[in-house]
């Protein structure tokens, strides 16, 4: 699994209420949710995000509510991967379960600036920041989680 895109950067404790405010949770249509993604933290996000872009977030990314609508909105907006210093645990599960790639890499987030071009090779656990000419090694997922990802999400895994 390889991804390439430009960085959209946020700080620590990006919560699920700002990723997708509850006033839009009277629907679970992913296109509708994507229209309001990040609205309460960054009104410009939906207009500037391009397919393949990568969110770089700080510590505790996705904290707060268990709404799966948060990773769904991020994925449907075209984001290919979220790199953060750490993830809140429910967001972490939800992202894996719906097939939104996520990576913990504090060093990469510290170095990355808005707009930097980043390449990710998830199979080999490597991130490259082309602007900074730097590469990072990331911890592979535990085997069990890799199986879920390979199956294409939790429901497919369960069916198998």
């Amino acid at each position, binding site marked *: 699994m390889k991804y390439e895109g430009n960085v959209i950067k946020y700080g620590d404790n990006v919560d699920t209420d700002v990723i997708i405010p509850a*006033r839009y949770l009277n629907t679970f249509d992913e296109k509708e949710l994507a229209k309001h993604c990040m609205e309460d933290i960054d009104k410009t996000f939906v207009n500037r995000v391009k397919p393949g872009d990568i969110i770089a977030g700080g510590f505790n990314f996705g904290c707060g509510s268990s*709404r799966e609508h948060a990773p769904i909105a991020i994925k449907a907006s075209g984001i290919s991967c979220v790199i953060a210093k750490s993830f809140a645990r*429910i967001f972490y*599960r939800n992202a894996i379960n719906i097939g939104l790639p996520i990576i913990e890499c504090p060093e990469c987030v510290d170095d990355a600036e808005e707009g930097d071009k980043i390449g990710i090779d998830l199979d080999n656990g490597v991130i490259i920041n082309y602007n900074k000419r730097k590469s990072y090694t990331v911890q592979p997922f535990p085997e069990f989680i890799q199986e879920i990802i390979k199956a294409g*999400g939790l429901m497919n895994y369960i069916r198998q």
Partner: protein
Amino acid sequence: MAMTMTQKILAKGSGLKEVKPGQLIKAKVDMVLGNDITAPVAIREFEKAGLIKVFDRRKIALVPDHFTPNKDIKSAEQVKIMREFARKMGIEYYFEVGRVGIEHALLPEQGLVVAGDIVIGADSHTCTYGALGAFSTGVGSTDMAAAMAAGEVWLKVPEAIKFNLIGKPSEWVSGKDIILHIIGMIGVDGALYKSMEFSGEGLEFLSMDDRFAMANMAIEAGAKNGIFEVDSETLKYIAEHSEKDYEVFTADSDAEYVKEYTIDLSKIQLTVSFPHLPENTKTISEVGNIPIDQVVIGSCTNGRMEDMRTAAKILAGKKVHPNVRCIIIPATQKIWKQCMNEGLFEVFIDSGCVVSTPTCGPCLGGHMGILAEGERAVSTTNRNFVGRMGHVRSEVYLAGPAVAAASAVTGKISSPDDVIG
């Protein structure tokens, strides 16, 4: 190997003699929960996968509490999906308006969770049931769908942080103040992926309602779960509410904790969390002059009977400040009726409060009390993130029921001592 309370429950649920922190396990669940925001997504995933049967129709609870009574057509459609699914699958614990309450107040009250249970819920505050000595944790909709089908969930066995509670809290200080104090101390990711285990001689001074409020907000410290040692108070509550079999798990004396804190409850003051993170805590004496527009007393954190009684004690014979709307939301129908029988509604209405039917409503900016630009609320709810209760430039100050009720009277964040002379 020595184990914590959480580790012992997870070992039982996965059929293993022992488990270790970091180990991935599959555990059988005793209850699976979803609400009107999360369950429709779970039902879509369930049906998309071609599944036709739930694992146990008596171990699933569907609770439409967030946008109910339905605030608009779209939310009515979401509840319709739940209702029809519940009928089709024969799910026993679907709660219709008129019987429904806020999920994390409702399930314990209905006796659906007891000590030793493993509960997952597609709602982050599912961790509330740790007050009963159960392992309970929030998950997403896909996890809920998978658990409805298979009756199990994959979990990573968490490390633990121990909170040894000592001393007796002073007047007006409730479980809410204690947990806000702890979150202020360790931060919103201070317990990330870990279990928060509460024990110690101070437990005897904490009611079940105090403990529910504390376990409820474990997620606000990033925790996987919060759990209380079972004592006579817990067993009394279970006996009064449930006929289910329960099992008490006690931590081994040499269980390992990544950190241990001793919390002297007698030293904890009334505490307020400032916008926009629950960790931004100040004691009431540090607050300063903060005028407010709204007070909300309710939610899965503080919509229980003791919260109502505390609010009434402070509001009795007083008037809500002319600049303030005070919204009171008893969390369940049973609590609502009890408030009525004890004469609390008379107090609330005479003082100028409005009383709502049970709903999560304003806590998440859903309905029944949304804030306009620049408005401030003191709220007994659990989150004060940007835009949580309404406009992106509104503010939520989290507090317990005593501070909330006192603030309603004075029109600024206040201690009950400012109101009751």
